[in-house]
């Protein structure tokens, strides 16, 4: 305090000398000058605080988005995983039976199952695949099912798709598994399952049809795996209309639509 007052006196003496007018003005303007400096300081402080605040909430928002993306991916992963164990354990059980009934068929089945597993593992990291890759995968799956169900299973393909068309992995196989389960039920002769893959206006449309017995109610709600697929489609495209089922004249049709532009957008990311 003494130092400030002394400093002030020196400044007054040195700058103002003996100019009384100026001395007077200087003294009377103290409050205004003080106010001005105070405002500058306050503004600087507030500005710094606000900036920091924004940075914090920004990073928090980022964390939240990251968390929800992770959560979504975890759920997608879990849904994808769910589809595998049943099929795997059932196939092993079939092999178990074949070892006793027909060892050579058991060997054949082990080879096919290994092929299928190998391509499953390869696909694990992919977000989208070309249709041809998917068809190859489906065929390795069908090879196993045909061992399990013998000549009864007849699968036909109708292909009319754009070469660049892509789709996420592990969607078609569970639908096919469903169709085979329900198609083979309660029938003795051969069962025809048809798969049509068609490009239509930025959409890849995949329809799987299987016959069903007249007294059999088409699966409602409890359909094997269909709910899981619906959920995955929702998580990926935020749409609920991409998987539909219809039953006409003893044919049960499951239609899967994959928006093309969106899928490609995903690969760019």
């Amino acid at each position, binding site marked *: 305090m003494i130092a400030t007052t002394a400093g002030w006196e020196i400044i007054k003496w040195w700058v103002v000398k003996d100019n009384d007018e100026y001395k007077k003005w200087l003294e009377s303007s103290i409050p205004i000058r003080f106010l001005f400096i105070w405002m500058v300081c306050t503004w600087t402080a507030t500005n710094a605080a606000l900036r920091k605040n924004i940075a914090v909430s920004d990073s928090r928002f980022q964390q939240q988005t990251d968390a929800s993306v992770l959560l979504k991916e975890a759920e997608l992963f879990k849904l994808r995983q769910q589809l595998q164990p049943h099929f795997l354990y059932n196939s092993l*059980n079939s092999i178990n039976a074949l070892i006793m009934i027909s060892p050579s068929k058991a060997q054949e089945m082990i080879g096919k199952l290994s092929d299928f597993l190998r391509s499953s593992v390869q696909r694990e990291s992919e977000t989208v695949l070309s249709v041809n890759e998917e068809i190859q995968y489906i065929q390795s799956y069908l090879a196993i099912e045909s061992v399990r*169900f013998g000549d009864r299973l007849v699968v036909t393909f109708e292909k009319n798709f754009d070469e660049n068309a892509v789709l996420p992995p592990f969607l078609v196989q569970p639908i096919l598994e469903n169709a085979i389960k329900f198609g083979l039920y309660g029938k003795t002769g051969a069962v025809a399952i048809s798969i049509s893959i068609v490009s239509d206006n930025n959409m890849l449309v995949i329809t799987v049809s299987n016959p069903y017995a007249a007294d059999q109610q088409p699966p409602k709600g409890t359909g094997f795996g269909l709910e899981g697929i619906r959920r995955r489609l929702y998580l990926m495209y935020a749409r609920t209309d991409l998987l539909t089922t219809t039953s006409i004249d003893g044919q049960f049709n499951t239609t899967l639509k994959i928006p093309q532009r969106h899928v490609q957008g995903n690969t760019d990311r």
Partner: protein
Amino acid sequence: MFKVILIDDEPLARQLVRTLLESFKQITVVAECSDGFEGFKAIQEHHPDLIFLDIQMPRLNGFEMLELIENPPSVIFTTAFDEYAMKAFESHAVDYLLKPIVKERFDKAVQKWLLHAPDKERPKVTELLETNVYEGYQHRIVVKDSGLIRIIPATEIFYIEANDDYIKIVTNDGSYLKKSTLSHIENTLDPQQFVRVHRSYMIPVTQLKRIEPYEKDSHIALLHCGAKVTVSKAGMAKLKNLLGW
């Protein structure tokens, strides 16, 4: 001689159990079925001592089939992968075999059954069915309708009424009786869709048309189907809570 029925939708899976059973001379396989419908018929016809039952089957699953049978035989469940059901089996000491079925484990299960066969394990299975054996909620109820099996989608239910040991499921096509309790059904149906509004009534929220005060602590719910259902004080609170009144 013990009679056994195999119920599994996969022929190879049945073949496996049949082959594994060959070493038990006191057991004969009287029928093989590929789903719950066939299984139901075969059990009525043969009255087996034991069934091997898969859970996941088209049309009618293993549990739904068992629910329809009045005095179910002993059951050894065979399943590929169903964590939830496995927990239920373990807590009720009901035997099950995991696929792929291994001979050692299979033999143990059958021997154990043979040891206890005279007193049968029926009560255990019945008890098991009284708990919620399903993961998630059911979207349908399976009933017996003059010897035939009917699957009622949850969306077609008008309301469900308790009736002594039975529940009465009222739909557009008429009403059906099922040997079960409202508390059990309450556990299996989605609580976002079905509300137990009274000790004796459960209604789908979509059926609710209007609610009128009745006596001191109760209300009357008018349903779209025209029926009137008593709503208790607790039921009213549940409705308010669910519908956000």
